[in-house]
């Protein structure tokens, strides 16, 4: 889990304490390899495919998926990054800061955009991302790839590519990076 998410998760100012290792580094890598194949298969190749990584947790995931897809299909898929802080529906309800870079150099009109994030939870980040994308053009399709789907959706949003479905309690915290996936909680 990125620094920012950590700071924005109650209790504010707490530290993440891991309880269980859900996936180790090798398992994360295998899951992303499978997702890479699935993206290529679903779209019958990588023509017009663009990865848009959600800041901040999705960035290193998207970079690895892009490298894996290059190894599989020899296509260099463009990557953009998107910080959805300014599109969130909880502005004013909790601290929100657009601290990370949005960098989308290409017109998304007509492209197949694969949003990449580490964890899918309530779906509100993805809702904000879908709004943000419309300011960069009209993609032909938008798909969603996540390492962990932890449930508790509050909106009608579902992922297209999932590393692992992980049943969680609402107050638990899932920490994802390339070294592994940990399940735990924030403690003061």
């Amino acid at each position, binding site marked *: 889990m990125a620094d920012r998410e950590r700071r924005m998760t109650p209790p504010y100012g707490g530290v993440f304490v891991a309880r269980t290792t859900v996936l180790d580094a090798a398992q994360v890598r295998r899951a992303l390899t499978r997702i890479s194949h699935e993206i290529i298969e679903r779209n019958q190749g990588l023509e017009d495919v663009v990865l848009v990584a959600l800041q901040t947790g999705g960035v290193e995931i998207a970079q690895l998926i892009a490298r894996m897809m290059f190894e599989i299909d020899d296509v260099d898929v463009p990557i953009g990054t998107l*910080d959805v*802080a*300014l*599109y969130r529906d909880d*502005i*004013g*309800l*909790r*601290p*929100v*800061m*657009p*601290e990370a*870079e*949005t*960098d989308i150099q290409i*017109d998304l009109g007509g492209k197949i955009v694969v949003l990449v994030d580490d964890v899918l939870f309530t779906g509100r980040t993805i809702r904000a991302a879908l*709004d*943000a994308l*419309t*300011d*960069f*053009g009209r993609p032909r399709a938008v798909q969603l790839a996540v390492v962990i789907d932890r449930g508790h959706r509050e909106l009608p949003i579902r992922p297209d590519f999932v590393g692992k479905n992980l049943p969680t309690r609402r107050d638990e915290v899932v920490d994802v990076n390339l070294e592994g996936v940990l399940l735990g909680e924030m403690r003061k």
Partner: protein
Amino acid sequence: MSNHLIDLKDLDTEAMRELLHLTDRFVEVCQRPIPKVPALRGRTVALIFFEDSTRTRMSFDLAAKRLSADVLDFPTHTSSLSKGESLQDTVETIRAFGVDALVIRHGSGGLPGDIAEAVGETISVINAGDGLNAHPTQGLLDAYTLCQHFNGAAGTQASLSGLHVGIVGDIKHSRVARTDVAAYSSLGAKITVVAPEALVPDDVSEWPVAVSNDLDAVLPDLDVVGLLRIQKERITDDSLISIDDYIDRYGMTESRADKLRTEVVITHPGPVNRGIEIADAVLDKRPNVLVQQQVTNGVAVRMAVLFRLLGSGIEID
């Protein structure tokens, strides 16, 4: 500390850096195909300008609109103020509409601060220039423009250290000079103010600056020449020098500009008195004259301030 922005002197370096780094984000937003985000949907920003202003007012207006806030423009000339309503009652009335922020410019120094104190935490007050006191968003946009020019962006550790900035003109009557000094010094720049003796502020010894009356002596050492707008009457009445003398000693004439290293940067808060503070040819043709960039960055800086105060859920401290 506060949900208001009254004077950059109220901000420590960290708080200023945070606003400048936030500005990086809004510079990017302003470059998008659709340069607008829904961040402040449903918020209302009232613009209350008791002094004439074109660019600052338009800049705040556009900044609020690019954040999807609604803008309430208060016509001070035709309002009930001219019918004798007190300023306090007017502010209360505007508050009763349910606005979230008051952007105030007034000829009397300290007035936005007084209003901020009166309204407390309920709404945000942003000083858009008060008398000879302060103009915080101008200071932020000038500092941002220099950070962007010299470092590409503000980043998390915005700094102007290593730069020697000259501020030239009517320092005594300039809130921009006071505010720029606060911004630049907070970020570590070395500052020299340059003016005729009569236009040097009485309390200048308390400022973190060197003082000179001789632009040509200072110029070879400067990395940035910050020109101020002058008011012709003030120059001639207070400093007892003619406009021609002023141009001769302090104007950025072609011959003076020719002696500058190319990489030396020239700024001006606008509107420019062409041919007085700066010659036409210098303004239009010389590289590294950042006047237009200052205007462009002004919108992003004001977006950052509005978002920080109204949207982030975090107080400036």
